[in-house]
C-alpha cells in the first residue's frame, strides 16, 4: 500500500509530524502533566504568589473531592445533562438532514443558511441572546407561550432545559451538515432500490441508510459527547456561573469556580483530571466500536 516516492526515509513521517508534536507536547501534554501534578499538591493562592511553599498531599485532594456530596451531585447532573444534549442534538440533526434531502434547492439553502448562522454564533453571544429571549420581563418567548413572568433560570430543571435548547441550537448544524453530506454520498441506486421495493421512510432509514451512515453517526456522536460533556460557556453565562445555590453546575464550570473563584487550584485540577478520565473511558468505548467494525484507524 505504501507508496514508493514517500518511503525513502523512515524519518520523513516524523519530520512531517514534528511541528504538530512540538506544539502538542508543549501546550497540551505538559499542561496536562502539570494539571495532574497540581492535583496532588496543596496549591492555593498563597502558594501561587509565593507566600507559602507547596506541599505534597497525595490523594488528599481527591479524598476531599470524593467526600463532598456536591461533587457527586454535579457529576450526576453533568452526565445526565450531556446525555440529554447529545440525544437531542443527534435526533434534531439527523431528522433535519433527512429533511434536507427531500426538498428542492431553495428551501434547502434557506435551512442550511439558518443552521450555519446558528453554528457561527459565538457561544457567549448565543447564550446571551437566548437568556434575553426567555427573560421573564422583556423576552418574547414567555409572551408567545403565555407564561407570564415565569423565570426559567430559577428552577433547576427549567434552567437546564433552557441551556439544553441553546446547546442543541448551536450544535445540531454540525450533525445536520455532516449527516446530510453522508447521505448525499450514498449511491442513488441503493435508495432507488429501496423505494421501488415500496419501503417506508422509516424502513429506508433504518435498514438502508443507517447501516451505511454508521461510521458517520459514530463520529458525530463521539464529537457531540466530547463537546457536550465539556459545556462551559452556556452554563456559565446563562445560569450566572452555576445557577441558584449552584444547582446548574456541571463539572467544567465547577472546576473553574473551585480553581479561579475560590483559588483552590488543586481541587479544580483534580476535577479536571476526573473529567479527563471519564472522557478517556468514552474514547476507549469508541475505539472498541471502530475495531469491531474491522476498520483501521
Amino acid at each position, binding site marked *: 500500500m505504501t507508496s514508493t*516516492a514517500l518511503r525513502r526515509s523512515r524519518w520523513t513521517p516524523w519530520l512531517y509530524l514534528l511541528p504538530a508534536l512540538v506544539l502538542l507536547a508543549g501546550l497540551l501534554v505538559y499542561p496536562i502533566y502539570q494539571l495532574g501534578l497540581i492535583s496532588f499538591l496543596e496549591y492555593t493562592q498563597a502558594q501561587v504568589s509565593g507566600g507559602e511553599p507547596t506541599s505534597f498531599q497525595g490523594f488528599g485532594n481527591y479524598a476531599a473531592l470524593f467526600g463532598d456530596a456536591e461533587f457527586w451531585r454535579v457529576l450526576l447532573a453533568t452526565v445526565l445533562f450531556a446525555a440529554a444534549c447529545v440525544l437531542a442534538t443527534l435526533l434534531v440533526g439527523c431528522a433535519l438532514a433527512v429533511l434536507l434531502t427531500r426538498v428542492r434547492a431553495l428551501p434547502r439553502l434557506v435551512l442550511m443558511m439558518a443552521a450555519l448562522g446558528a453554528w457561527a454564533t459565538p457561544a457567549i*453571544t448565543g447564550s446571551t441572546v437566548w437568556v434575553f429571549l426567555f427573560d421573564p420581563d422583556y423576552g418574547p418567548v414567555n409572551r408567545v407561550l403565555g407564561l407570564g413572568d415565569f423565570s426559567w433560570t430559577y428552577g433547576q430543571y427549567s434552567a437546564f432545559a433552557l441551556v439544553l435548547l441553546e446547546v442543541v441550537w448551536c450544535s445540531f448544524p454540525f450533525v445536520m451538515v455532516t449527516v446530510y*453530506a453522508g447521505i448525499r454520498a450514498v449511491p442513488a441506486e441503493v435508495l432507488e432500490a429501496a423505494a421501488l421495493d415500496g419501503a417506508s421512510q422509516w424502513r429506508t432509514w433504518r435498514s438502508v441508510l443507517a447501516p451505511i451512515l454508521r461510521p458517520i453517526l459514530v463520529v458525530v456522536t463521539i464529537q457531540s459527547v466530547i463537546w457536550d460533556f465539556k459545556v462551559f460557556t452556556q452554563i456559565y453565562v446563562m445560569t450566572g456561573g452555576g445557577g441558584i445555590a449552584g444547582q446548574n453546575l456541571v463539572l467544567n*464550570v465547577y472546576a473553574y469556580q473551585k480553581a479561579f473563584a475560590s483559588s483552590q487550584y488543586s481541587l479544580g485540577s483534580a476535577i479536571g483530571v476526573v473529567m479527563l478520565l471519564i*472522557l478517556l473511558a468514552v474514547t476507549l468505548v469508541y475505539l472498541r466500536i471502530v475495531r469491531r467494525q474491522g476498520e483501521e484507524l
Partner: protein
Amino acid sequence: MSLLNAIGIRRPGRLAAEAAAVAIAVLVAFPLYWMVLSALKPAAEIQSTDPRPWTLAPSLDAFRRVFEQQDFGRYFLNSLIVAGTVVIASALIAFLAATAVTRFRFRFRTTLLVMFLVAQMVPVEALTIPLFFLMRDAGQLNTLGSLILPHLAFSLPFAIWMLRGFVKAVPEALEEQAAIDGASRTRFLWQILFPLVFPGLAATSVFSFISTWNDFLFAKSFLISDTSQSTLPMALLVFFKPDENDWGGIMAASTVMTVPVLVFFVLVQRRLVSGLGGAVKD
C-alpha cells in the same frame, strides 16, 4: 438520476417537507433576528414589557457605542490576527501531520492516532490553570501569543483527525506517477497533494476559526492588564455591567462579532458540505 428523485421527489409530501424546512429555518434564525433587531431598537424599546418583533424607529446608537469604544478597531484587528494565524498555521501543520499518519507506515502510528483522538477530550477550561503558569513563565502573558499558541495546539488534534480522510482519498497512483515524472517529495506534497486536499482544509478551518474567534476564556485569563492586546469578546464583555446590562450594546457587539464568522461560513459553505462528507466517509 439524482438522489432527490430517488427519495421521493414525486411524492405529494414534498411540499409539506419544504414548508417544514422553511418553518424550521425561521425558528432557527429567530434568535439571530432578535439579536440584530435588539441592536437596532432604541433603548426604550429593548426593555419593554411588550416586546414587539419589529421596530418602527431603528437606531444605530448601539452600534455607535460599540465602534466608539476606545480601541475597538484594535480589538477587531487583534481578533483577526489571532484567528487568522491559528487558521493558517493549524491548516499547514495539520496537513503535514495528516499526511504522515495516512501515507506512511511507521511504529507508534496507531498510538499517535489514538492520542490525537484523546487530545480532543481534554477540557480546555481545566487547562487554563497550568497554561496560565506556562504563559507566565514564558513571559507571554498580555501578548497575542498567549492566545495564538494554545488555540493552535487545541485545534490541531481535531484538524488532523478530520484531514486524514481527505489525504487518504487521494489515489496512491497519483503519487507514483509523480515520482516517475521525477517530482521531488516536497513538490508532490505542496503542488499536487495540497491543492487536492484543500477542500478538506477549508472544512476543518471552520472549526479552528470559530473556536478561536469566539474565545473569551483565554482572553480573559491571559490578557491581564494590557488592553491594547484585547480581542473582540472583551469588547463585548464591557457591556455587561453590574448595575444595568447595556442590552443594545451587547446585541450590537454580538452582531459585529458574528458577521465575520458568517462571511467565513458563506465562503467555505460548499466546501464544508463536501468536506465533512469526505472526512467521515473513509
